[in-house]
Each structure stands twice: as C-alpha cells, then as structure tokens.
C-alpha cells in the first residue's frame, strides 16, 4: 500500500484525475504514470481534483511542471481544482497560481474547457 491513489474518469474530451492520500517523492511516480498515459493517448484536456489529497511536497508539484508544456502545445491544459487551504498554500508559495488555472470546483474547470 502506497498511501496514494489516482482515479481517472474520462468525460467526453476531458479527463479528470482524482487524487487521494499523500503526494510526495515516493508516490509522485504514480501520478507521473497517470499523466504520461493521458499524454500518450493525446488526451490533453486534464482536470486534477485535489479534494481527497491530504498532503503534497514539491516532488508532487514537480510532476505538473513536467507535463504542462506538452499538454498546452497540444491545445490542452492541466486545470487544478478543489484544493484544501493546506494544499493551496504549497502551490501558492511556489508561484503556481500565476501559471496554472486553480479553481474551487471541478465543474468550474470543466465549464472553462468548454468555453473555448
């Protein structure tokens, strides 16, 4: 048992990854694999829901940095949602809000994908 789970749901052209548990240097490769699979399938519209994530370190944030360029160059995006204040603070300290769309709820991210 690794203490981390990522569940994928495909919703038409948008894929949602729901994270659960803790995301650190040990579990980051699991998220990396899930994102790599999406990119391999050319599914570039991705929502990552943090609702059930209790902890994140910079190793977890690094995973998003590793994929964002490729996803955006495929006309997609990685939109982040449902962060607790504890999780948001780590993203905020590293300047992510200027570079990633972070919203309170998955439905907002989904609507933003369909706006364009």
């Amino acid at each position, binding site marked *: 048992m690794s203490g981390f789970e990522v569940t994928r749901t495909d919703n038409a052209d948008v894929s949602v990854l729901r994270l659960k548990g803790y995301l*650190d240097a040990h579990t980051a490769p699991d998220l990396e694999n899930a994102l790599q699979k999406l990119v391999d399938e050319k599914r570039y519209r991705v929502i990552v829901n943090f609702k059930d994530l209790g902890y994140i370190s910079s190793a977890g944030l690094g995973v998003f940095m590793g994929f964002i360029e490729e996803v955006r160059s495929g006309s997609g995006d990685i939109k982040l949602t449902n962060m607790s204040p504890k999780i948001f603070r780590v993203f905020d300290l590293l300047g992510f809000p200027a570079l990633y769309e972070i919203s309170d709820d998955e439905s907002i991210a989904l609507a933003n994908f369909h706006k364009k």
Partner: protein
Amino acid sequence: MVPNLKKKYQLRIPSHAGNLEIVREFVSRIARKVGFNEDDVNKIELAVDEACTNVIKHAYSSDSKKPIEIALKVDLEKLTVEITDRGKGFNPKKLQRPDMKEYIAQMRVGGLGVYLMKTLMDEVVYNIQPGKRNQLRMVKYYTKDGEKKTAQVGVG
C-alpha cells in the same frame, strides 16, 4: 530548582522515499506535542520532508542502504531540526530563488525544496563536508507576530 526542559528526539532511517511518511509522522507528532499550532506543524513537516527528499535523491543518489539521521531538539523558545547524512553534499551558495517560468521551460524540478524550506522555517543553515558529514539545521521559534507562546515540553 529550574526543571530541565530541554528534550531531544532522534530517528534514523534508511535513505528511501518510502520512509518519508514515517519521518513526517515523527516530526509532526513532536511539533504538535510541544505546542505548535496546526499551521506551524504543517510547515515543519513539509520542510523536513523536503530536506530528507533532497538527501535521498541528491546526497545519496537513491542508494537506499545509506542512513539519514533526524534529530529534534526542543527548548523553551524553539524547535531545532538537524538532518545529517554522509553523502556527497552540494554548494548551498549556488542555489537561487527559482524562477517558475524558467523552471517550467527547462522542466527542472529540483531546487524547489530548498526554497520552500527557507520560506517555511525561521532559520536554515547548511554545514557541508562532502563524503564526511553534511548537516542541515532548521529552526522554528514558538514566538510569532510578537505573540509569546509557551512551550509544553514533553508530558512525563
């Protein structure tokens, strides 16, 4: 007679990322027990995770046989965390505040940890002797925003 309120807690783990959870549990329990609020407990927990992650990935290049020592020293005004390894070390002066746009462009992931540690803790000092003994010392004071907190050191 003045009671001795200094306490020291130690943990020694093999250098493997699978042990980070144990480190976080150890550090956060003690920080909570000596009276830090949940916000500060989270900061200390993350700073120590980042420090150990750097040792595992860089100082020991993921050689899981090597040991990492984590010592927490508690006194009336502060919590001091000392993380010691015998790996290859690095030059802390060469680290700069990361430029996130640059990082993303280069897909660089390392270096964020040290920046976080400096942001989360009150003091971060490296003592690097490559191959012999590298020690990182981080301090968090109980006092914050001029408000004096009282340490509750241990219970029995």
